């Protein structure tokens, strides 16, 4: 998972953060010689030592509220041996040739950067030590560092990093892979809570987000999209719009969702977004949507019912003979599960600002994957990827929506149509709901066989979802190793696909946010048939502590057992009890088990308390932010399950227009307490944006079942 090798081949510069016009360079410290033949401008720039001995650290990943803008600099600062008070954090631009991977997705920032970012800090420290050793004529081994200074204990001499920075820049850069790193027992920043770096600005309302981008001569664009996904522009009558004073242009573009040469989006550019938005009423667009207007939720449900009753189109995983084992099983449990399309509903609507000038694009992009945005935007704008400069803004919520870059593609093309004028494109809430890339819906038909001792001997799942040409659409997949498949002797997982016109995409804990519900809920039914509760069935199925090879990553039964036991202990789990439910899931390298307590009165479910036990390895880097991530994930999961969230489609068109049609959790529905504990294990630290979300949904469903006696096999949960 480490990209140390990538970083190693490049040179590092301790002095200049890219886009450094606002920075005064005090010293340049080159950390590694450029690779042979590498262009002179291939530099990595994470650290700048300022004259006042403060240190500016570049935060490379997009900040969507996951706290990465603090977490990554913490890793550098730790090994550079700074006092946290010395640290100033700056968001870098998007440029993977300088900074390595810059994606906010998949809870990957921690596992990807745990070593490389520490090595960057350690390499800078080694060069500062080398500079001091030269100046004092002593061996580097006799020197130590603390709080931004190099110390020579024998003589009591010390020099600040600021005073050494220039000399350090002439040192031969160390091999990143060989720099010595601190023993975790010596950490003074990692493992200590650091608040959000932008909080002082947020509470004053200072401009930080993409939508706040301000530039001289800025014009604004509102979007008109074919209501049915995939429809294209047949003709436009924009005479009435162009007659409005202040309207600058009407431009048809391709968002990247329809084939090249066609357009699915029309932008009205004006001197005010409000004006552009209002002008949409006067725009007449004839859409070519015949091929996409036949899709509907009712149609999917009918098709799914037909598909699931037939053999799967594609086999996903087979072991033993599941059919034979079901026939000879002592008990058989069968059930169907399903879940809907979901929107992301980031609170900051999709937006992007772009300026096209002299054949080049400059963008201010709230994107979770700016590197992909660069490629796609360049292609649609007909310019070279290196002719895009991408500034990363703070992002008002990601949840996976901004891993796709339609707003960048649109902004780039409209900017190209009005060269020299910076354009800010903003989706309104209805655009945002109707033109999302949705968590795909799915249907599952399960059967499981138990032997006389209550052990699972057979498991079948026929998963029905959306695909094309025998392959699942984006995020419409299921791991062949979905638990407990690899542990059960006779397994048959298969998939069938149907078509949709909707764009699909990754929603926080993609696939897992649905699979946890269906698999854990079904396993609870199996447990009940075996006369057990779910934690006990899990323990028996997991068996001895061992690592089971997986599709992408191994699954450790001992770590799973660890969080299951921990949460049962904290919550005082005593077997099946009225008002309690349990769920476990492993995803994004994190193991989480959760217990939910509910009370139900007058058909209204109230979640009273949630207990969480998680295992993300040996170290929680920023404890306060870890808590934020876990609690937020739990509340989001509860919202998906209990608020009726689903995306409904009629005549090809998504019906949701605003939050009245797709309810998000509000304070009145939030439990009084979400108790979180981390189990430390001897594994490398992993991410926290996602893995706490999935298990809360089956835990909630189980808790409701324990009260009503009615199994809930469909999301959103129907409470009455």
């Amino acid at each position, binding site marked *: 998972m480490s990209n140390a090798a990538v970083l190693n081949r490049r040179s590092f510069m301790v002095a200049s953060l890219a886009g450094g016009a606002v920075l005064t360079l005090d010293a340049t410290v080159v950390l590694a010689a450029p690779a042979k033949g590498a262009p002179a401008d291939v530099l990595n720039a994470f650290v700048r030592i300022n004259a006042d001995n403060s240190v500016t650290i570049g935060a490379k990943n997009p900040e969507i509220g996951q706290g990465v803008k603090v977490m990554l600099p913490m890793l550098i600062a730790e090994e550079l041996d700074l006092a946290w008070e010395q640290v100033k954090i700056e968001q870098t631009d998007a440029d993977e040739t300088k900074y390595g991977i810059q994606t906010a997705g998949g809870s990957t920032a921690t596992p990807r950067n745990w070593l490389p970012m520490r090595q960057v800090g350690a390499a800078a420290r080694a060069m500062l030590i080398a500079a001091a050793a030269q100046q004092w004529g002593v061996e580097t081994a006799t020197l130590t560092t603390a709080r931004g200074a190099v110390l020579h204990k024998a003589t009591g001499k010390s020099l600040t990093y600021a005073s050494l920075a220039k000399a350090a820049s002439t040192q031969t850069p160390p091999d990143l892979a060989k720099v010595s790193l601190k023993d975790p027992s010596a950490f003074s920043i990692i493992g200590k809570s650091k608040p959000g770096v932008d909080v002082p600005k947020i509470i004053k309302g200072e401009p930080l987000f993409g939508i706040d981008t301000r530039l001289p001569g800025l014009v604004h664009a509102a979007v008109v999209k074919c209501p049915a996904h995939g429809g294209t522009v047949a003709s436009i009558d924009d005479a009435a719009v162009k007659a409005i004073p202040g309207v600058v242009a009407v431009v048809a573009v391709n968002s990247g969702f329809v084939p090249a040469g066609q357009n699915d989006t029309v932008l009205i550019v004006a001197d005010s977004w*409000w004006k552009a938005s209002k002008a949409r009423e006067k725009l007449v667009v004839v859409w070519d949507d015949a091929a996409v207007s036949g899709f509907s939720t009712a149609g999917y449900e009918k098709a799914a019912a037909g598909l699931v009753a037939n053999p799967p189109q594609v086999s996903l995983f087979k072991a033993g003979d599941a059919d034979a084992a079901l026939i000879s099983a002592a008990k058989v449990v069968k059930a169907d599960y399903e879940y809907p399309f979901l929107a992301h509903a980031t609170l900051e609507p999709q937006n992007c600002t772009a300026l096209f000038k002299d054949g080049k694009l400059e963008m201010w992009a709230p994107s979770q994957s700016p590197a992909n945005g660069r490629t796609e935007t360049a292609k649609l704008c007909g310019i070279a990827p290196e002719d895009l400069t991408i500034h990363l803004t703070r992002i008002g919520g990601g949840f996976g929506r901004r891993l796709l870059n339609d707003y960048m593609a649109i902004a780039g093309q409209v900017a190209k149509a009005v060269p020299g004028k910076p354009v800010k494109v903003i989706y309104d809430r209805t655009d945002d709901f109707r033109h999302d890339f949705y968590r795909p819906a799915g249907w599952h038909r399960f059967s499981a066989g138990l032997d006389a001792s209550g052990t699972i001997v057979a498991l079948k799942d026929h998963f029905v979802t959306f695909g094309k040409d025998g392959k699942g659409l984006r995020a419409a997949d299921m791991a062949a190793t979905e638990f407990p498949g690899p542990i059960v002797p006779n397994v048959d997982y298969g998939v069938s696909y149907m078509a949709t016109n909707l764009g699909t995409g990754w929603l926080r804990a993609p696939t897992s946010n649905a699979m946890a519900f269906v698999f854990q809920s079904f396993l609870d039914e199996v447990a009940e048939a075996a006369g057990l509760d779910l934690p006990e069935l899990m323990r028996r199925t997991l068996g001895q502590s061992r690592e089971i090879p997986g599709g992408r990553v191994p699954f450790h039964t001992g770590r799973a057992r660890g969080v299951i036991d921990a949460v049962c202990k904290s919550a005082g789990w005593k077997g099946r009890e009225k008002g309690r439910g349990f769920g476990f899931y492993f995803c994004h390298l994190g193991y989480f088990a959760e217990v939910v307590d509910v009370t139900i009165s007058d058909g209204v479910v109230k979640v009273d308390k949630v207990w969480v036990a998680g295992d993300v390895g040996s170290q929680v880097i920023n404890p306060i932010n870890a808590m934020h991530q876990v609690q937020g994930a739990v509340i989001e999961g509860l919202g998906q399950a209990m608020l009726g969230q689903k995306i409904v489609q009629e005549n090809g068109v998504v019906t949701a227009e605003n939050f009245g049609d797709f309810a998000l959790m509000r304070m009145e529905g*939030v439990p009084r307490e979400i108790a979180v504990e*981390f189990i430390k294990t001897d594994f490398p630290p992993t991410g926290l944006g996602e893995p706490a979300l999935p298990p809360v949904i089956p835990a909630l469903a189980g808790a409701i079942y324990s009260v009503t006696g009615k199994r809930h096999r469909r999301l959103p949960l129907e409470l009455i």
Partner: protein
Amino acid sequence: MSVSLTVNGRKRVVEAEADKPLLWVLREDLDMPGTKFGCGAGLCGACTVHLDGEAVRSCQTPIADAAGKTITTIEGIATNAIGKRVTEAWAALDVPQCGYCQAGQIMSATALLKQNPKPSAEDIDGWMSGNICRCATYLRIRAAIRQAAGLAPEIVAAGNAGGEQVA
């Protein structure tokens, strides 16, 4: 139309269509982007400002209705004693995640404490449920309001994060 109003203690005159929402006048005409666009329908609370001391959704307030009125936005809320306590509690408890909704949350919380200085847990939940936080920072919003109101914490320690107690 030409509209005069007082924003954060400063007299302002803007030229805008009568139906242009106060939200967009603040963001576009007065260059004050702290007040956020979330839904445009009064459903999420991100655009909350104070109009003559009352919390209103600025996306649902035509500028004509704000003529001659006194507006307080997130950019000016800390000049008010209660607003100052609220923003300080927000920072002390590290409330924001993405931060996009927080201007609206702070404006609503300040309005709550103005008219109900010692709110009950139910009062807080009821009042604040007009404001969506998509990141779900609700536990800390509750705690920050209690802190700003001088009320004891509802829950002493929410858990143990990697060996460090985090309230």
